[in-house]
């Protein structure tokens, strides 16, 4: 098993520009320390129609109302910063916001992983090659490449992005690694509720028992800790 940079085709070059946009990094920094409720706010705003902040504050009183003002230092400020950045993403237009949302989930995954493993071991857009096995076309969004144990992450904005192809690619990588006597943990990261992901997965027959699912409620597990229970 070995890792390789993905080919830089035209799509990859365009997408690399999105990934490098400062707004993506800003959003990832904010979401890395966000509560699950604040992450749902980001998801709603980046999926939403309303471009003014006021109505969103009304929709999420636990994040902006009196309770938020009484919360720990910085809670309300973080809610405001997430709202502002999310509105910027939503304001980029339908096509662009879709690319941004995917890039944000990837950047967030990378940032959370860096709290558990050495940043040097974390790579983006990598293919995994196995002896005698044709390489997959699509690279993995994020990989952890460390001696003894490797991890491969596929990042999705929503549960609807879960497909049989994705599940097969992740499980195939795990099985091929195992055949070489190596350990590879495949992980599906979805910025959506587990309930919606389970609904999506229930209709698929593709193998997934060896694939770990991380959802919007449990993103902090990427960093090796449990999610906070507060809003």
């Amino acid at each position, binding site marked *: 098993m070995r890792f390789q940079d993905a080919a830089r085709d035209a799509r990859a070059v365009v997408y690399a520009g999105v990934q490098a946009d400062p707004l993506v990094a800003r959003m990832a920094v904010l979401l890395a320390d966000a509560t*699950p*409720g604040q992450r*749902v*706010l980001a*998801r*709603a705003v980046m*999926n*939403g*129609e*309303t471009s003014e902040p006021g*109505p969103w504050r*009304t*929709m*999420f*009183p*636990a*994040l902006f*109302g*009196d*309770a938020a003002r009484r919360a720990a230092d910085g809670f309300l400020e973080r809610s405001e910063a997430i709202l502002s950045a999310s509105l910027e993403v939503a304001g980029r237009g*339908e096509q662009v916001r879709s690319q941004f949302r995917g890039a944000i989930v990837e950047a967030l995954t990378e940032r959370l992983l860096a709290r558990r493993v050495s940043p040097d071991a974390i790579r983006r857009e990598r293919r995994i090659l196995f002896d005698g096995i044709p390489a997959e076309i699509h690279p993995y969004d994020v990989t952890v490449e460390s001696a003894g144990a490797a991890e491969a992450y596929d990042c999705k904005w*929503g*549960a*609807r992005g879960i497909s049989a192809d994705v599940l097969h690619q992740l499980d195939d990588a795990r099985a091929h690694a195992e055949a070489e006597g190596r350990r590879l943990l495949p992980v599906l990261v979805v910025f*959506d*509720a*587990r*309930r*919606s992901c*389970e*609904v*999506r997965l*229930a*209709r698929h027959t593709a193998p997934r028992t060896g694939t770990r699912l991380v959802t*919007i*409620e449990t993103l902090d597990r990427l960093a090796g800790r449990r999610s906070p*229970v507060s*809003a």
Partner: protein
Amino acid sequence: MAAIGRLVARAEAVDDEWLYIHDLETVWLARLRAVAADAAVDAAPDGASAAASGELSGGELEAAIERLVAEADAVSDPHRAIDWLSTLPQATLVALGAGAW
């Protein structure tokens, strides 16, 4: 719950996702009904919901739900409606202070 029904009607334009759309509708409506039943049991004497651990006022909750429904109703694109079939219940449960979405 009626807003979810309206999202379903819009999302059904995406033929390939018919089963997923109705599966989402089924599980999220069940979750919202369960939360509503719990809230009814815990309701305070003045009628305000005891959800949100008592930290939010009834007025804040009512305004939040009303505005969330308006946001969902503003979604016209069927693909975005599918996204909102998952987003609306999550946001509603965050507003209510309910866990385990």
